[in-house]
């Protein structure tokens, strides 16, 4: 059957199965060329293998919760949305959440996701106590900081190429309310944006939305949004009685045949201008519920369809801190000059991270969305080169189109991963369309 990631590009003909128990799963894995798939929210081809894609939807059960330490044990196919809806009312929330809650536990581990608090709390990996993984030999191995350390480290951020995550234990943090105190700061250009981030290291959460159609002096003008967990006393009166309850929100559904012309440079420009103006107008502090703050796009079901039939790609790179200013300038100029405005442009300061193969490193990460067409594909290749020139690298959970050459140039860690995979023979058993494309 034809399968694609969240970006709906590329579409790959694959054999898809959904085993119901460990025995069936093991049989599938031992056929080789296997990759696990969670909820299909990686943008490109990282959770697809042409010969053997294994859907983990039947491994979706929560197994234990330790109320003393906030430790949750769950199967890999459990959705973050379910973890939140189960534990938020009891006063617990994940330490790290990506931009959508429709991801699985296994997917978050494989991509070692980060959130708006990376500068302070690090990536998802820091809150994983142990992982049980079905390895290339068909055995289940538990790995953690205390046992099978190498397997543990390569699995976190290893894009599913070390084996199939079956179960894991993660830690949740205690919280007092389902609300975030948000303050919005206005930055007139990229230097100001960076300055604001550098002054906001103490903020629990920080992220910037960039109006990427601006040139010259206004290049990189943005709204920098900071957030803190709100105490129960400070939340809106009508929600005070149930501080851990999320307010009800109507969901918007994008029709299947959303016309691709609706998203043109004019409408994108108008949207960006409006968003900036609106942010500037209400930049005072306000209270936002957790859902709206962490997962703003989740209320629009199927928003990936607004880019039309051909799908879209997300470009996300991280630049080392010392080259961030120059690199971001170059990336944003190239985007603005191409006139291919991105509907969503998000900038985030990342903190330090030591890991085998995870995406985050100290510096700035920029994410841009583009509909797939000849012009934007050429632009993204240009952005690839700028990133490599500035010593940056790319987020594989988002990638769907990078060339092998660019990838190998950007990642000094590839050879170590390859030699680990070859030692473990996992390179013969696990493979994704992405790992094949990139030579991983």
């Amino acid at each position, binding site marked *: 059957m034809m399968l694609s990631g969240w970006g709906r590009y590329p579409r790959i003909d694959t054999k898809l199965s959904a085993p119901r128990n460990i025995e069936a799963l093991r049989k599938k894995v031992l056929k080789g060329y296997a990759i696990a798939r969670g909820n299909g929210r990686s943008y490109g081809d990282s959770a697809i293998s042409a010969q053997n894609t294994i859907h983990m939807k039947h491994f979706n059960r929560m*197994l*234990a919760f330790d109320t003393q330490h906030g430790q949750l044990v769950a*199967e890999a196919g459990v959705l973050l949305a379910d973890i939140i809806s189960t534990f938020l009312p009891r006063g617990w929330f994940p330490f790290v959440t990506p931009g959508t809650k429709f991801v699985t536990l296994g997917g978050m581990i494989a991509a070692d996701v980060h959130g708006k608090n990376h500068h302070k709390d690090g990536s998802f990996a820091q809150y994983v106590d142990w992982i049980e993984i079905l390895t290339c030999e068909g055995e289940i191995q538990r790995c953690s900081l205390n046992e099978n350390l190498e397997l543990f480290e390569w699995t976190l951020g290893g894009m599913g190429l070390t084996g199939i995550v079956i179960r894991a234990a993660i830690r949740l943090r205690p919280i007092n309310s389902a609300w975030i105190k948000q303050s919005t700061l206005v930055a007139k250009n990229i230097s100001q944006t960076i300055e604001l981030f550098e002054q906001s290291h103490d903020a629990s959460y920080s992220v910037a939305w960039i109006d990427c159609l601006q040139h010259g002096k206004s290049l990189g003008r943005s709204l920098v949004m900071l957030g803190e967990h709100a105490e129960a006393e400070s939340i809106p009166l009508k929600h005070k009685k149930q501080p851990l309850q999320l307010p009800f929100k109507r969901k918007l559904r994008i029709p299947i045949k959303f016309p691709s012309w609706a998203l043109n440079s004019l409408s994108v420009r108008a949207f960006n201008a409006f968003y900036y103006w609106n942010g500037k107008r209400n930049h005072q502090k306000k209270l936002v519920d957790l859902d709206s703050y962490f997962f703003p796009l989740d209320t629009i079901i199927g928003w990936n369809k607004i880019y039309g039939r051909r799908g879209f790609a997300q470009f996300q790179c991280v630049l080392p801190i010392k080259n961030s200013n120059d690199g971001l300038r170059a990336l944003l100029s190239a985007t603005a000059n191409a006139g291919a405005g991105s509907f969503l442009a998000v900038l985030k300061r990342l903190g330090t991270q030591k890991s085998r193969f995870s995406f985050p490193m100290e510096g700035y990460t920029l994410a841009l969305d583009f509909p797939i067409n000849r012009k934007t594909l050429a632009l993204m290749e240009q952005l690839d080169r700028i990133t490599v020139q500035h010593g940056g690298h790319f987020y594989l959970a988002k990638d769907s189109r990078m060339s092998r050459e660019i990838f190998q140039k950007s990642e000094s860690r590839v050879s170590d991963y390859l030699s680990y995979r070859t030692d473990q023979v996992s390179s013969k058993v696990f493979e994704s369309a992405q790992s094949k494309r990139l030579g991983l």
Partner: protein
Amino acid sequence: MNNILILGAHSDIAIAVAHRFAEAGYQIQLAARNINNLAADKSDIELRHQVNVTLHEFDALDTTSHSYFVEQLTILPNITVCAVGYMGVQAENEREIKEASLVIRSNYEGPVSILSVLANCFEARGCGCLVGISSVAGERGRASNYVYGSAKAGFTAFLSGLRNRLAKKGVHVVTVLPGFVTTKMTEGMDLPKKLTAQPKEVANAIFNAVQKKQNIIYTRPVWRFIMIIIRNIPEQIFKRLKL
């Protein structure tokens, strides 16, 4: 405290039903063969909904054990959902009487036996609700699955009779005719998307039917019309159709 017993708990619909009732605060009793395989589902339901789940070894085909099975339940449930069933392969059912017999016993004899025991207990108590998951396949025999269909037809008739008998005794009976559902049973079949329900939808429909005391429910309303048409095609034409 509200309590529900779910028979044939390995089925996807059964687990979805358990989640739906647990969400509403019901205590859950899951009954099936090899209950150890339900340990993960037990902890999942308990964690998500903060209710108590108990597991009970139950063999629908071992009809002599059914009275004892009900006796040893510590709580006689308010509601029982019977999700026991087995489709088999039609071609084998035609060749092997042993296979056909297994299908008939799984879909008719077993469910009838256990529901009869429970019906008597509910009748004596004067309240309760019995839910039987039958099938649209039982509405009219078709070449592609008539052994399964005929057993379900029997089960549907049994439920209708039971409802008739217990109507004045405070016990309600719901017949569920789910239509196509994405489950273990239909895995690998190419089903039309608009007609195919998710187990969650079936569970919601059952939950509502129990609350509103509905008698016969189809999960997706369109099935009611499809079945009116299928039931009313003259046999002269029907026998030539490939359905």
